[in-house]
């Protein structure tokens, strides 16, 4: 009974995670410039993958597997913002302009005219 309940929950988490991944990919394709694309990919992508790893943790009734799945999720949560920040910084410093729709660009005056 309780196993069946957790299996239903795990299946729903799996579907939700893959839909998050699909939304991240759609955002990657539709958004106008590199910074907004990064916003879609690094947040929704991490969420989708994290939900899929959480589904493993819920479906498996094994302490070691649960620990490894949670460790993978925490690792993703730690590394994804770092990677996105490094990439955004590199893109901005090498002169990739934000889209025309950007309203506030506080770093515009000095750095982009380099």
């Amino acid at each position, binding site marked *: 009974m309780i*196993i*069946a*309940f957790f*299996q*239903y929950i*795990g*299946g*729903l988490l*799996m*579907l939700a*995670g*893959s*839909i998050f*991944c*699909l939304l*991240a*990919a*759609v955002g*990657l*394709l539709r958004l106008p410039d*590199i910074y907004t*694309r*990064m916003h879609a*990919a*690094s947040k929704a*992508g*991490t969420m*989708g*993958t994290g939900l*899929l*790893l959480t*589904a*493993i943790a819920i*479906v*498996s009734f*094994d302490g070691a*597997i649960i620990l*490894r*799945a949670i*460790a*993978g999720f925490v*690792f*993703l949560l730690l*590394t*994804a913002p*770092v*990677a*996105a920040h*490094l*990439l955004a*910084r*590199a*893109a901005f*410093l*090498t*002169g*990739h*302009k934000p889209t025309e729709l950007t309203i506030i660009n506080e770093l515009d005056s000095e750095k982009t005219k380099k």
Partner: protein
Amino acid sequence: MSSADFLIFAGIVSFAILSLAFFLTILRIILGPTLPDRVIALDMLVYIGIGYIAVVVIYTGYFLYLDIAIALGLVGFLATVAFARFILHRGRASEQIKQMESEPEPEAKKKRKRKL
């Protein structure tokens, strides 16, 4: 529908959705106008790959594949950091390169050649 059947059904649907996401991300890699666009799409591709492995783990029941997912996450992070360093040192926005090439000043061209 019993719970095990539902898990298998969710696995198949997740495979289909993740395949669609994979396809859209590869489209961005092909289309991507600049290098950082392609790098961020590659990063996303790694995430989707980890998701694929997670669905395979649940679908087949071989929980050993989870270690491969964690290793893939590590490699993807290091690859993105390396690409960011590469862009910082070598990459330049395509508009700027066009500007420099259209400028008649020899100084700018010299600078670019020295960097390349």
